[in-house]
C-alpha cells in the first residue's frame, strides 16, 4: 500500500475557542485588592489613662465637613490642610525638646520646649465626627502613618546603613512569604523591632463626636 500522510487537522477554529475563553476570563476577572492600612485596635478593658503632658499631645480633630483642626505646640489650634499634615506630624514627632532623661539623641527637629519631648513620649490623638467621610479618615490615617514611616526610614538607614534598605522595604521583605531563610528573617525582625522601639506608633483614637 502506498504510504499516505495523515490528513492535517484544521486548526482554524482554535483562535475562536481561545477567544471565547479569553472573553470569559476577561469578564469574570476582578483584580482583588488585598492591601491596605494595618492597624491595631486598643483592647476594651478600662485602664486609668496615664497623665500626659499637654505638650506631648498632637490633638487632631476632623469635623463633619472633613476639615482638619490641629492643636499642638502650645498654640490654641489652627485649621490645617491635609497636604500639610504629614510635615506637621513629622515636625511634632521629631521635635526632641526634652531635657535630661527625656532628651532625644537622634531627633533633628527644632528642640522647641513647647512641643514634644521625644518620639517615645509623643502621642497623636485623633478625634472624628460621626459624619466624617471614611475617605477623609483614610487620608488622615495614611498621612499620619506616612509621617511615622518617614522617621522610621530615616532611623533605619542611620542605624543600618549597610542594608541598602529603608524601614518600609525591610518590613516588606520580612512579610514577603518568599523570604524563607529563617536567619535572614530573624535578623530583619530584630532590626525592625529596634526601630519600632525607637519610634513607636502612638496613635490614639477618641470616640467620635455625635451631634
Amino acid at each position, binding site marked *: 500500500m502506498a504510504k499516505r500522510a495523515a490528513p492535517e487537522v484544521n486548526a482554524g477554529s482554535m*483562535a475562536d475557542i481561545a477567544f471565547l475563553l*479569553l472573553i470569559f476570563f476577561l469578564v469574570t476577572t*476582578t*483584580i482583588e485588592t488585598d492591601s491596605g*492600612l*494595618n492597624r491595631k485596635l486598643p483592647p476594651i478593658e478600662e485602664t486609668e489613662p496615664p497623665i500626659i503632658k499637654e505638650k506631648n499631645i498632637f490633638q487632631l480633630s476632623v469635623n463633619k465637613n472633613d476639615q482638619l483642626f490641629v492643636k499642638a505646640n502650645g498654640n490654641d489650634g489652627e485649621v490645617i490642610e491635609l497636604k500639610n499634615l504629614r510635615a506637621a506630624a513629622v515636625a511634632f514627632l521629631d521635635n526632641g525638646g526634652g531635657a535630661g532623661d527625656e532628651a532625644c539623641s537622634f531627633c533633628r527637629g527644632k528642640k522647641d520646649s513647647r512641643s514634644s519631648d521625644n518620639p517615645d513620649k509623643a502621642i497623636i490623638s485623633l478625634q472624628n*465626627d460621626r459624619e466624617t467621610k471614611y475617605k477623609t479618615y*483614610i487620608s488622615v490615617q495614611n498621612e499620619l502613618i506616612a509621617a511615622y514611616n518617614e522617621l522610621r526610614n530615616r532611623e533605619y538607614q542611620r542605624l543600618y546603613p549597610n542594608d541598602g534598605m529603608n524601614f518600609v522595604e525591610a518590613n516588606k521583605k520580612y512579610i514577603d512569604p518568599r523570604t524563607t531563610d529563617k536567619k535572614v528573617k530573624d535578623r530583619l525582625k530584630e532590626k525592625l523591632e529596634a526601630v519600632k522601639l525607637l519610634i513607636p506608633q502612638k496613635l490614639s483614637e477618641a470616640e467620635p463626636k455625635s451631634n
Partner: protein
Amino acid sequence: MSKFKKKKDGGIPAVNTASLPDIVFMLLFFFMVATVMRQNTLMIENKLPQANQVEKLAKKDLVSYIYAGKPSSQYSNLGNHARIQLNDKFADISDLRRFIREERDNMREELKPFLTMALKVDSEANMGLVSDIKQELRKENALKINYTTRQGDALGNQ
C-alpha cells in the same frame, strides 16, 4: 520579460494569521492566572479609598472581610444609608459579634490569634458606622484590622 511580470499578478498576499491563536492563548493564560473569583457577591457600592502607605495582607486564610457601603442600585429600596454586608447578605451591627465568633470557629486553633478583619468600606460612608464596627470588634477582641484601600495618592481622595 514575462518572468518579471508574473510576480505582480498575485496582488497583496494574505496576512498569515497562524500565530494568532498563540497570542490569544498567551492573553488567556495571563487572565487565568490573574483571576481571583469573587467570594462574595457585593450588594453594596464599594469604591475603596486610596492610600499609599499600604502593607500587603500576607495570608488569605487568616483574613475575613467586612463590607460596608450604601446599597447598590438594585437594592435601592433599602434606603441610601451605608449598611454592613457580611458574606452574601446585609447585616446589622448586632450580627457582627456572631460573625466574628463563627469566623474564629472555622479556623484552626493555633491560627486563631492571627485573625485579621479586613474592612472594605466605601469611601462615601461616614465614620459613625465605621466606629460602630470597630467598637464591636473590640468587644469581641478581634483587634487586628486592615482598612483595605486601593493603591494611590491619599490626597486624591478629596
